[in-house]
């Protein structure tokens, strides 16, 4: 756990095209380690796409990504990923403990099986989110908030330095929401860097210390006090980029 590099995540000219339609345009950003960053923008702005392309889940058509100074591929274990809840198959036959254990798989390679150390890490992570009593429950049998906590536990068990979370606050109850925020802050205290795709502009100003304003391209990145301003928010959400999306649609039709 050594944030040896001051910059946790750096992208340069990150461009993503989906079915020939440009979704992200040349994103240049450098995120200092130890920050708690909220990614905000209107629907269809490419927030999830940004995270997925950083992870390499979605291929980029240009630009590069560096994690702690090295290309993503070489530093995979240092990145933890929490996907959107709706992309999960909740009928899958796994228990809460199984999911938490998945967080430990990264370091195991093909042949080694999860042992005592891994089980301990998973249990501790579950304990931290208050889900240890539910270890043997099948994941479909949980409420929305509980499901989210299990996935957080999985991320914690990964013991990474950089976390990318895709809309973790969607559809959770108030208690879970504040529990998640507390957890995020605690992770920051421990030197982790966390990027969170967030859907609610109001709370974004309170929960995070940095904001990444995104709408197909980077509008602004910086401390909340510098960036959470009416002008910049208007630029992000204001829809003045209709020409950009029109041209993007044109490009897609080719």
């Amino acid at each position, binding site marked *: 756990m050594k944030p040896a590099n001051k910059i946790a995540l750096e992208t340069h000219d990150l461009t993503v095209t989906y079915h020939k339609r440009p979704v992200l345009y040349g994103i240049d950003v450098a995120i200092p380690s130890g920050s708690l960053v909220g990614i905000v923008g209107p629907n269809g702005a490419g927030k999830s796409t940004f995270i997925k392309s950083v992870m390499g889940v979605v291929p980029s058509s240009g630009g590069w990504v560096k994690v702690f100074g090295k290309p993503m591929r070489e530093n995979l274990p240092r990145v933890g990923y929490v996907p959107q809840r709706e992309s999960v198959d909740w009928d899958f*036959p*796994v228990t809460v403990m199984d999911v938490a254990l998945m967080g430990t798989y990264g370091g195991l390679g093909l042949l080694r099986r999860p042992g005592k150390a891994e089980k301990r890490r998973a249990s501790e992570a579950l304990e931290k989110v208050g889900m240890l009593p539910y270890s043997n429950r099948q994941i479909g049998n949980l409420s929305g908030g509980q499901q989210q906590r299990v996935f957080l536990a999985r991320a914690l068990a990964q013991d990474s330095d950089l976390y990318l979370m895709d809309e973790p606050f969607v559809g959770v109850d108030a208690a879970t929401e504040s529990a998640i925020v507390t957890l995020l802050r605690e992770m920051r205290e421990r030197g982790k860097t966390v990027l969170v795709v967030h859907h609610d502009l109001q709370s974004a100003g309170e929960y995070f210390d940095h904001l990444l304003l995104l709408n197909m391209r980077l509008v602004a990145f910086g401390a909340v006090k510098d960036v959470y301003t009416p002008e910049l928010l208007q630029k992000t959400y204001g829809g003045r980029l209709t020409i950009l999306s029109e041209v993007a649609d044109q490009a897609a039709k080719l």
Partner: protein
Amino acid sequence: MKTLEYITLPWDVLGLGALWLILMAFFVALPCSQMGSFLILRRMALTGDAISHSVFPGVVIAFFITRDLASPWLIVGAGLAGLASTVIIELIHKWTRVKQDAATGISFTALFALGVVLMELLLGKNVDLDLECVLHGRLGLLLEEDRVLLFGSLVPIPVLVMAGVAVFTMLLLGLFYRVMMLSSFDADLAASYGYRPAVIHYGMMFVVSFIVVAAFQAVGAILVIALLILPGAAAYLCTYRLKVMLAIAALHSLISAVGGLYLHVWFNSNMAASVVVCGGILFLLAWLLGPVDGVVWKWFKDEPPALEESSDNAGNS
């Protein structure tokens, strides 16, 4: 006949042959049940069906050249045909507005039709590979196959070959269990660990094609899908734990093999079809009485039949 005679009938009629039939059916069904369970979890159940239809022309051509049903070239031919079908499906739905389900249908029906035509034209009235074989395989003819002396008894060769296939598949599964589980549950996380989805997908398709070719000779092109899906589906309704599900699926294949033999002997019906029908009966039992999803328990608990209606838009309205 008295009840006891019903139970001993297979052994009375077939002697040790009953054992070979059961073992053959089990060795075919076991790898299918394991891979098929993952196909179900990945919502790719019908891909197995498509593969079993698509590999047929490859098998016909390979058989035409080698004239030997046990030749490894059949697997090569099948693999190539399977690859061709994947390419065709992609060519159709990636390059035009025809969607994937229709593209799959066009591809595997065309390949299968091609296989039947080639079979009739190239092979003519061949006993080893004909329309009957396509429909229900040669499981029932096992006892007429060549045998080899092993541990003091004459074992039909296909049983040994199939045992090898089964062992090989189980070894692969043991090695890659975590990878398969993770990529089936959360492909993005698996990708973030470096397990690339495309590689896993094609790897799985390859293994399924391999198993399908072996199963095809036993139960024919159309019933393979039963061996792939029925065990896993029944097990899915019985448990919430993946390892238990795989174990139950294996048990299902064993019981289907035994039950299929009995049906075959009692009703003098086709062996492969009997195994499948037995599997279907077991599935019905799981549907009604399965601990996790059984309809009877849910009816008693007065719950709505499912938490929410299946929200996928593939293949239903």
